[in-house]
């Protein structure tokens, strides 16, 4: 029998989409029956009381949570979000309901062994409710009490070889797309670099030392499945600088309808026969493709690598072989002055395709990390010069993107040692009030009025 009546929430149990209400009830039931005989370390009625509290919010249209104050684990500045309810008497089992961010594995692959171990821990020491996953990417364990935090951290680190994620003014848990592990479009190993940088910057992740939060995200190609360009201070987007591979026989199979366009993504409607002109050539943003005498050609010099043609004909067209990443900086959500998209700062950093040794090829993880430090030296240099700049010039709670607006893109480019190029802009400036540096103007700015007057009457 449910502890609280929840008529409004009950209406969210019907309909086809998985109901979070049914799921919370399921966990409430498991805790009430406790068939596994768990010695619950937080009140067993946590799920019931969460439903009760949530029903109240549905009734009166406002939240019943308060900001959490300072809770955390010793020595870490993030990873725990404190949370207290403003109805502790009515719903005592969720009076304190802190969340724990657990650093997610690359591309969110799991073994059931790991998940079961984590869930056993969480049923014992928390509400048994989670978010799979939080928006940054972490596993979010939803709801426990202060005394359990160190215990959970201890079990995670000692028994599961697993750390917390980031929160606060520090490096947030980096996240990656599925990449080369299952995507033919990936121009680099997103899991490898994501793991490498996460490990390299553990200190920055756990101990806030930045003006504000900082995020890395890794997209294997310009399709941007993890949305790095919109939501990471430093966005890594895979790309190439040679030619798109073309298999003419497969192109023909798209034209005659044997191969489904766009890998079958449009099967739900009859769009008519495949039309190479309309669907590919004319939609190419740079109009750099031609189809003549049964042969498709691409003027790769003009191609901006938007991925459209490759997405439409994945069997026929392949990403190039000289691969690397483009780095874009400064993306953020609107708060405060407006949303920012990542802006291109490093057009192309080549990633050595011959350096493909894996962890298993080394004696220890340390040796592998050293190898990766060499492989990604260029990336590390850019990251660290950006951080130096931001930590020196950034105001408190100023995201990198805001600093870039305040001081200009030139400043950032100068700090990372990048010569400004036409690819850095959408268009050149429209306003000619250029601030010259004195040393750029022959003779400098110190002039002699008397010298001037020799040639110009007063």
């Amino acid at each position, binding site marked *: 029998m449910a502890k609280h009546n929840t008529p409004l929430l009950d209406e969210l149990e019907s309909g086809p989409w998985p109901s979070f209400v049914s799921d919370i009830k399921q966990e409430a039931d498991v805790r009430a029956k406790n068939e596994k005989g768990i010695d619950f370390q937080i009140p067993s009625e946590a799920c019931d009381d969460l439903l009760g509290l949530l029903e109240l919010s549905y009734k009166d249209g406002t939240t019943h949570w308060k900001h959490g104050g300072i809770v955390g684990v010793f020595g870490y500045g993030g990873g725990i979000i404190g949370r207290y309810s403003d109805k502790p008497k009515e719903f005592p089992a969720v009076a304190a309901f802190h969340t724990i961010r657990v650093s997610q594995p690359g*591309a969110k692959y799991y073994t059931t062994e790991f998940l079961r171990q984590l869930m056993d821990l969480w049923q014992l020491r928390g509400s048994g409710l989670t978010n799979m996953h939080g928006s940054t990417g972490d596993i979010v364990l939803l709801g426990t009490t202060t005394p359990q935090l160190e215990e959970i951290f*201890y079990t995670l680190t000692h028994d599961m070889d697993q750390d917390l994620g980031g929160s606060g003014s520090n490096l947030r848990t980096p996240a990656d797309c599925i990449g080369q592990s*299952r995507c033919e479009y990936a121009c680099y190993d997103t899991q490898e670099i994501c793991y490498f940088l996460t490990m390299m910057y553990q200190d920055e992740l756990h101990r806030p030392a930045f003006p504000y939060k900082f995020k890395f995200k890794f997209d294997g190609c310009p399709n941007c499945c993890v949305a790095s360009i919109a939501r990471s201070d430093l966005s890594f987007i895979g790309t190439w600088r040679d030619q798109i591979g073309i298999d003419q026989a497969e192109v023909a199979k798209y034209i005659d309808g044997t191969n489904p366009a766009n890998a079958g993504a449009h099967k739900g409607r009859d769009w008519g026969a495949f039309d190479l002109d309309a669907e590919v050539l004319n939609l190419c943003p740079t109009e750099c493709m031609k189809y003549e005498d049964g042969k498709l050609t691409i003027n790769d010099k003009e191609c901006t690598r938007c991925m459209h043609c490759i997405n439409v004909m994945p069997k026929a067209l392949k990403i190039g072989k000289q691969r690397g990443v483009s780095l874009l900086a400064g993306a953020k959500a609107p708060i405060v002055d407006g949303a920012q998209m990542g802006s291109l700062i490093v057009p192309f950093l080549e990633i050595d395709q011959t350096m493909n040794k894996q962890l298993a090829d080394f004696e220890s993880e340390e040796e592998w990390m050293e190898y990766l430090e060499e492989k990604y030296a260029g990336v590390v240099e850019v990251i660290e010069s950006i951080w130096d700049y931001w930590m020196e010039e950034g105001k408190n709670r100023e995201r990198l993107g805001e600093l870039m607006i305040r001081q200009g893109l030139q400043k950032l480019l100068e700090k990372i040692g990048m010569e400004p190029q036409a690819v850095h802009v959408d268009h050149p400036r429209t306003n000619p009030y250029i601030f010259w540096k004195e040393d750029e103007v022959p003779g400098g700015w110190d002039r002699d009025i008397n010298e001037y007057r020799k040639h110009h009457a007063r």
Partner: protein
Amino acid sequence: MAFISSGYNPEKPMEGRITDIGPKHYDQFYPEIIKKNKGKWSHHEILEPGILVHVAENGDEVFTVRCGGARLMSASHIQEICDIADKHCDGKLRFTTRNNIEFMTDSKDKMLALKADLAQRKFDGGSYKFPIGGTGAGITNIVHTQGWVHCHTPATDASGTVKATMDEVFSDFQDMRLPAKLRISMACCLNMCGAVHCSDIAILGYHRKPPILDHEYLDKVCEVPLAVAACPTAAIKPSKVELANGETVKSVAVKNERCMYCGNCYTMCPSMPLSDAEGDGIVLMAGGKVSNRISAPKFSKVVVAFLPNEMPRWPTMTHAIKKMIEEYAKGARKYERFGDWTDRIGWERFFDVCELDFTHHLIDDFRDAAYQSWRQTSQFKF
């Protein structure tokens, strides 16, 4: 309940302490077929909604079944996911960026057995546990934030608005009839933890009333300078206030017309709550994208300034969303994303066909972006 120690000794927190170890290495978690073919994938095909096959250069195939899930998930549900993965997928699985669950197998037969197993699992309340879909030119899972389940500044609930919306658009989760993929995101206050600002359609919780000031307690529980500094629009200043009992206390004053209801002050100071049943509700945005495909990534634009919270199913909101999707499905060309469609037909036409009111709230963006949003050509549509 007796306290069970994990081994941690509060007297000596540093004893044997392990820190800075990061996540587990991904290698341990890859399915065998993934490990074997990493970096050697040739192409893929969506066989039907929710079912993908990826083919490696050597001909190996991996079949993926993609299922939706509420991102608020119980341990019991995750244990059931594990049971399924143990039964069909050698104990491996993954989650996608948009909170879908992916089960992978190395043969078509295994995939078919898996599919049949998943399709019949339902919650007691009747909803699917593992609806299959979310691929190609359709609608996939909604990424969202905490809402009333766990945050102190939401202007609406996240899980509920998402469930209500996904129920309404469910047929498009299991179909691929749209001109291109359509991404919906949800964030429960303007802080947008979920970064919804580049979605084809975004649902955003929004407050409309400045904070209430609990003068009597404010100085006792908050640092006034911190509260003042918290405000991004500099709407808060220190002030002295005379209480009903004649006592004068230190507090703050809020310049209401400067407030954009972000709740940062409440984050800093519990004596400045701002949620309000009448004030709070939903903003709808549309036309954003993150992919670089064909056109550049773009921000979503506000298309509905406010809708009241209608618990538990937000019918006015889901109706507006549904209408936008239908008009897009009807009007857009193959491969055209929502925002490319609105750019082509013009926003004036968009409001027309979607039967949305263009109100004065939608003009004049915040700060610098305002000027860029005005029309600077004599070209427009009647």
